[in-house]
């Protein structure tokens, strides 16, 4: 096992990078970070639409969220892989395809986290803001959202963990992320599949376990700092 790590660790981390495209663990992290950063604004907009008082906005977005959440991520990736080129006319590479699929998929899940965050706040917050003369948009932006987003922080870290796990599905469209690289190492070494996939599992574990402990710590810390009113905001736990 140590021998494999010794021989292949650079390849495992960055793929063929200086001589070829970036890959491996670095690509996994890059994809997950870009995915979450891009999905967050979209998720907030969709979440706001889900709780908006206007039906013409709420219904289509609710439908979208239900459809995306009812489909496996793999299905979303396939749609992106085969339809982006035919719609845009440009052949998108695997990274872009995967990024777009992740953004669409995560935005739907984040929308539900945002919705739970907003609905978890006491009704009085919105009513007070309106009574003070703010219109709906401003009351949302200045009073409700800042509090809701704060209580969402631990869920966001958890969503990042999910996104890291989701990037592994790039494997199926040949994206050179860490699972794909592990399989390539496996075909080169040939005789030690169990060790190689244990190393892969261990790598994901260290990364995701560390992050999920961080989310747990954050939750404790936010709860201690007098966030008692946001405690009822139970954002749904999401799984990949």
């Amino acid at each position, binding site marked *: 096992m140590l021998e494999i790590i010794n021989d292949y660790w650079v390849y495992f981390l960055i793929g063929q990078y200086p001589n070829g495209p970036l890959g491996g663990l670095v690509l996994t992290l890059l994809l997950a970070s870009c995915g979450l950063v891009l999905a967050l604004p979209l998720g907030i907009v969709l979440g706001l639409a889900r709780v908006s008082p206007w039906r013409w906005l709420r219904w289509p977005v609710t439908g979208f969220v239900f459809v995306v959440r009812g489909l496996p991520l793999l*299905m979303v990736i396939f749609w992106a892989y085969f339809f982006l080129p035919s719609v845009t006319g440009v052949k998108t590479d695997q990274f872009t395809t995967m990024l777009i699929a992740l953004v669409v998929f995560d935005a739907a899940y984040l929308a539900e986290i945002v919705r739970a965050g907003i609905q978890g706040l006491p009704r009085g917050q919105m009513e007070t803001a309106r009574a003070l003369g703010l219109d709906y948009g401003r009351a949302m932006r200045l009073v409700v959202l800042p509090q809701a987003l704060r209580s969402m922080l631990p869920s966001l870290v958890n969503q990042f963990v999910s996104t890291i796990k989701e990037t592994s*599905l790039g494997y199926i469209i040949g994206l050179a992320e860490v699972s794909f690289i592990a399989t390539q190492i496996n075909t080169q070494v040939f005789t030690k599949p169990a060790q190689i996939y244990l190393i892969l599992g261990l790598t994901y574990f260290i990364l995701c376990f560390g992050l999920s402990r961080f989310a747990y710590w954050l939750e404790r810390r936010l709860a201690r700092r007098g966030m008692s009113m946001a405690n009822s905001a139970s954002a749904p736990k999401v799984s990949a």
Partner: protein
Amino acid sequence: MPLFDYSLLLTGKYHDMLVAGLLLSLQLLAASLVLALPIALVVALLRLSPLAPLRWLGFAYVETIRNIPLLAHMLFWYFGAPELLPEGIKQWLYAGHIEAYSAIIALSLYTAAFMAEDIRSGIRAIPTVQFEAGRALGFGFLSTMRRVVLPQALRVTVPPLISQTLSLWKNTSIATVIGVAELMYQAGQVESATFRSFESFAFASAAYLTVSLAITGLATWYHHRFPVRTI
């Protein structure tokens, strides 16, 4: 060539392939669910056990499984694990449907970790006095669990378990990477044979969505039929 060729999906060879894929996906769902539930119950009880080493065992199981993507589990159980077995068993395994068995093992172990946490929080939602009263009446740990705590806890646990079943249903699609001929795999096959990607993926999406919405509907029905009781 028509824009959307329904006939491809309604009859013929490709229709049969897609339907066979859907049936296999449903079989994966059923087999994994049946295996995952008892494992989850055992792990949840381990996590609540009065003995520290057993608690640690449960914790280790849940955290290791949950923090590794299902894809990596599948690859390990398909490519890695059989290599570790003795030669005779290996031969016998490779002669059968090893990819389907690997997928079922990966799916059940993965789902069980999530379900164990749901069952555990269901048990913890039951006031401790219930447990204490059971013990005071002379029941042991396991009898108190079985006769007093679990019957109440499972009622609270069913909705999250249904939502884990939904995740499991979507996760069956990942079995395609190790070559299980389920719905996603068949959709890919039909796509590459006919170049009608829109039709084959539309069929697969509609099938996934139908089952997903049926599971969501089941959750809603349960919520109305058995509302949460406040004790």
